[in-house]
C-alpha cells in the first residue's frame, strides 16, 4: 500500500508549500545566472572563479542547491507514488518504489555534498 511515511514532510500542505517556495528560489537564481551570462558573453575562467569567490554568490548557490534537492524530492516522491504502485504494476511495486526513493535520496545527498565541495573549493 502507498502511504505518506516516505513523503518529505508527512503533510500534503507542507510538501506543496516547499515545492512552491523552492521553485521561486530556483527561478530567481537561474534568471540571475542567465542575466550574468548574457552580460558577460566573453566570460573567462578568472571572471567565473571571481564570481563564485564572493560570499553572496556562494550563499545563493547553496540555497539554490538545497532548494533543488527539496524540490526534486517532493517531485520524485510524487512520481513514484503515482506510477510505482501495486494498483499499476502489481505486488512488486512497494519494493521497487522504496528502492527508487532510496536511490533518489542517495543521489540527491551525493549531489548536495559534491556541490558544497565545488562551491567552497575544498
Amino acid at each position: 500500500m502507498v502511504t505518506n511515511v516516505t513523503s518529505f514532510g508527512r503533510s500534503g500542505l507542507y510538501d506543496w508549500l516547499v515545492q512552491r517556495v523552492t521553485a521561486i528560489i530556483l527561478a530567481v537564481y537561474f534568471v540571475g545566472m542567465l542575466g550574468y551570462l548574457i552580460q558577460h558573453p566573453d566570460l573567462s575562467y578568472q571572471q567565473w572563479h571571481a564570481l563564485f569567490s564572493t560570499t553572496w554568490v556562494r550563499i545563493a548557490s547553496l540555497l539554490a542547491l538545497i532548494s533543488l534537492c527539496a524540490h526534486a524530492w517532493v517531485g520524485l516522491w510524487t512520481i513514484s507514488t503515482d506510477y510505482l504502485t501495486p494498483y499499476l504494476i502489481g505486488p512488486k511495486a512497494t519494493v521497487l518504489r522504496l528502492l527508487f526513493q532510496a536511490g533518489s535520496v542517495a543521489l540527491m545527498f551525493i549531489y548536495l555534498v559534491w556541490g558544497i565541495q565545488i562551491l567552497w573549493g575544498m
Partner: protein
Amino acid sequence: MLVSIYRYNPEVDDKPRMQDYEIELPGGKDLMVLDVLELLKRQDPSIAYRRSCREGVCGSDGMNISGTNGLACITPVSAATRNGKLVLRPLPGMPVVRDLVVDMSVFYKQFEKIQPYLINNSPAPAIERLQTPAEREKLDGLYECILCACCSTNCPSFWWNPDKFIGPAGLLQAYRFLADSRDTATEERLSNLEDPFSVFRCRGIMNCVAVCPKGLNPTRAIGHIRSMLLQRAS
C-alpha cells in the same frame, strides 16, 4: 454513419473489443449521442449502457465520446463525430461491468469521505438556518454538480490513486460544504484533507474543467481549499 462501440461482457468475453455498427440517421435534425445509442439498441439489444432523464440532469450516461468524457444525452452527434465516425467507450480508468457500464464504487467512496452533508450541531432554529444573499452566492458553481464522474475519470491523478485522491468531483463538493456559512465542521473537514493525497494530488491540469458537462470549475474549488489549508496552518 459509422459508430464504434466498446463491447465487453466479463462473463463471456476474454477481453474487450470494439464493435462497428453502420446506422442510417434521420435527416434534417442533429440527434444527441444517446439517441444514436437508442437506435442502435433496436438493432442490437445486447448493447449495455446507463441512462435515465435524457436531459443532462441525472448524470447516468457519462461516457467517453470520441475521446472526450461527456453526457451522451446532451452531446450532439455533429460535435462528437470525427471523420464520419462516432467512437463510444466507457468512462476511462473505471472497472467495466459491461460495455459502457462502469463500476462507480470507488467514485462514490471518495464522495462519501468528504461528508457531503451539512454539519451543524447547534440547536436548530424554529424555521430554518438563514443565509444572506452574499453567503448563498458562494455556493453557486458548486452545488450544481450531478456526480456524473466525467471529471474524475478524466483526471490522471484519479486514475493513478483512485483510492486516495478524492478527485475533482469530490473536492468540488468538499469546498461546497467548506464555503457554506451554515456548516460548522470546517476545522474537521480541513484536517481530513491535509494529507499528501486527498487534495494535493491535483496537479492543476484542468482536465476536469475541460469536460464538465455543467460548466463547473473543480480546479478553482481545489485552489480555494488549498488557500484555506494554508491560512489555517500559517
